[in-house]
């Protein structure tokens, strides 16, 4: 029983971070119907951002996240104008290929600069004991920060003018344009926020696990599963999707070998697509 408790707790902590990573992907899909295949490499860049600032400038990893967020936002806006804007109204395959090309460029450059060697943010805040479970404090901080960032995103989308513009463009771009919403700028901003969330998630993951420039791919795949679970285009649904996936990753190994985790995750992915394609928490209505 203790074993199950520890596993669920571990899974929950990770689930919040997974949710944050997926939120970036699902936000971009929700606003502009683009599946961002550069999501994984941007998660990796977030990891390396924190790693470089921590290792070479001695910056606290959580402080480094602020710079990583700004970098993620700007990078997203640049990617939008360079690769996405011109093909945004083209069939899905075009945006898919455009973001895939961006992914290949980032991965290629990243591999050339950083090599594929594993890195590690050597930062520890000790551990706390909760009953039978010992949890590294970095995991708790990562979970709390993920919740705060999600809350911040929610408030931003609900309470600010640009947030409302984003929701308006997501709902009906033509109508929003008729109402005077500068849609191109709003799309660029949305793409920027999506990549910022990916970079932030990467930064938080770097404080938990070692990583390589290719590590983002794993989290991109998880983000797809979570996005479908929570409902693609529903950022808050993504957080719950993340929690479900995290808990599953915690529980499954208690009953069977851990190598079964991805098998069951993707079986779930297919099942949700077949049975409830709008996701457990409802997708954006198009």
């Amino acid at each position, binding site marked *: 029983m203790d074993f199950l408790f520890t*596993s669920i707790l571990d899974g929950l902590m990770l689930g919040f971070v997974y949710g944050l990573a997926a939120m970036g992907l699902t936000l971009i899909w929700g606003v502009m119907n683009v599946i961002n295949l550069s999501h994984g490499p941007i998660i990796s860049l977030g990891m390396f951002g924190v790693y470089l600032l921590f290792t070479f400038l001695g910056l606290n990893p959580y402080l480094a996240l602020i710079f990583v967020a700004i970098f993620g936002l700007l990078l997203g806006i640049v990617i939008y104008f360079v690769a996405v804007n011109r093909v945004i109204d083209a069939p899905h395959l075009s945006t898919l290929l455009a973001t895939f090309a961006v992914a290949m460029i980032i991965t290629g450059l990243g591999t050339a600069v950083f090599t594929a060697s*594993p890195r590690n943010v050597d930062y*520890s805040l000790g551990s706390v004991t909760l009953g039978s479970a010992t949890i590294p404090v970095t995991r708790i901080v990562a979970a709390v920060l993920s919740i705060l960032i999600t809350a911040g995103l929610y408030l931003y989308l609900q309470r600010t003018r640009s947030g409302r513009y984003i929701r308006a463009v997501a709902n009906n771009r033509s109508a929003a344009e008729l109402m005077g919403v500068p849609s191109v700028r709003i799309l660029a901003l949305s793409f920027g926020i999506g990549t910022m969330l990916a970079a932030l998630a990467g930064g938080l993951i770097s404080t938990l*696990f070692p990583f390589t420039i290719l590590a983002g791919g794993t989290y991109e795949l998880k983000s797809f599963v979570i996005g479908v679970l929570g409902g693609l285009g529903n950022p808050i649904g993504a957080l719950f999707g993340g929690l479900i996936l995290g808990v599953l*990753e*915690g529980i499954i190994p*208690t009953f069977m070998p851990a*190598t079964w985790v991805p098998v069951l995750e993707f079986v779930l992915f297919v099942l949700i697509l077949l049975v409830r394609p709008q996701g457990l928490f409802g997708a954006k209505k198009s």
Partner: protein
Amino acid sequence: MKRTIFWSLFLVLLLALAACGGGAAEPAAPPADTQTSDTAVEQPADTSPPAAAETIVIGFTASQTGNQNVPSTGQVNGLNLWKDTVNAAGGIELADGSKVMVDFVSYDDESNTDRVQELYTRLATEDEANFLISPYSSGLTAAAAVISEQYGKVMITTGAASDDTYKQGLTLVYQAYTPASRYLTGAVDLLENVDASAKNVAFVYENSKFSTDVVEAARQYAEGKGYNVVLMEGYDPETTDFGPFINKIQDSQPDAIMGGGHFQDGSTFTRQLNEKNIDVGFFALLVAPPEPDFADLGDAAVGVVGPSQWEPQAAFTPESAAATGLDWYGPLGEEFVQAYEAKFDGAEPSYHAAGGYAAGLILEKAIQDAGSTDPAAVQQALDAMNLLTFFGHIQFDTSAEAHGLQTGHSMVYIQWQKNAEGNLVKEVVWPLEGATAETIYPMP
């Protein structure tokens, strides 16, 4: 219709072009081949020994290029040091007082199995090598072993731990390394030595051929000694989150954890085990602990045990040989390290380098014992060999099932400990005849 025909023709044209391209590339290969051979033929001329009564030719390939380059270079450095040492002493002295000088012929195998077969055939026939040494790695050695047997050449293998090669009925191939099947069994012996009451072992290991083979052998060995295997679980090579495995370990309450795979997963596993404050007395991992970088883990490294083919501080001496009833042969470990550092600009020898030197040493002793360079006599001497060197105990299986398999040498087991100044140091803790410190048990 026209469009379909156009595209079909276009496709055919493309295929034809591709075929021509492939065809054109082929003749380009032989010149490259010739070039390698040319340089290789020149190589022995550079290192031709001073005039002596008899000179034997020892042939081998080295991975001067390709993915085995780094360990292979160490191995060849060790071999070169051995040759220089032997020739500087005037050669290998036989019982009748005559001396045999050593000469090498070697080629670049490009870390490629096909090249190995081609080049070992050349070494055995055109170059008329008297003896062969293996290339680096189990895969390349398996290819070379077949050739050496085919042409009746005695071959000493080094840098090749796999057991399979010696179980194919070969009679002339002799292994210097501890085979993969005994990589971790020493850890079980060590555990038994430090705590006879420990009974439960958890195996958590990387899902790769090497690690799975090693751990499977260790599991059978442990069960044979009466241990309970409370957990047997593999992880993917890319694993970074060991949380689920650590929770399982905690649930199964083992006295010892064994397993691992390679450096990255091993060090992450160790770090996360430490973060979770898992209370376990004994923790032995493959590959990662002997690496100097393992010390970057700080306190998490303290107490971790790891197997290595050889360590510079392994204290095998003539005294420890006498104590275990073995003959001693060759230099002391520290003499080897000093000579190596002097020859290679202060570089510390890796176990690959030590293995290369040891392969030469084994051949040298066999020729000496045989009293001649006759292959049959040397083969007989190798079969009878039972000695201690700076590299460890050397003895070969002489049964028909696994002829040439190393049975004497065992891994040395290092443990990370803190010295008086509080710095992390690697100490050899097993086998006892090579130990430099007592095992810390239970680990802190």
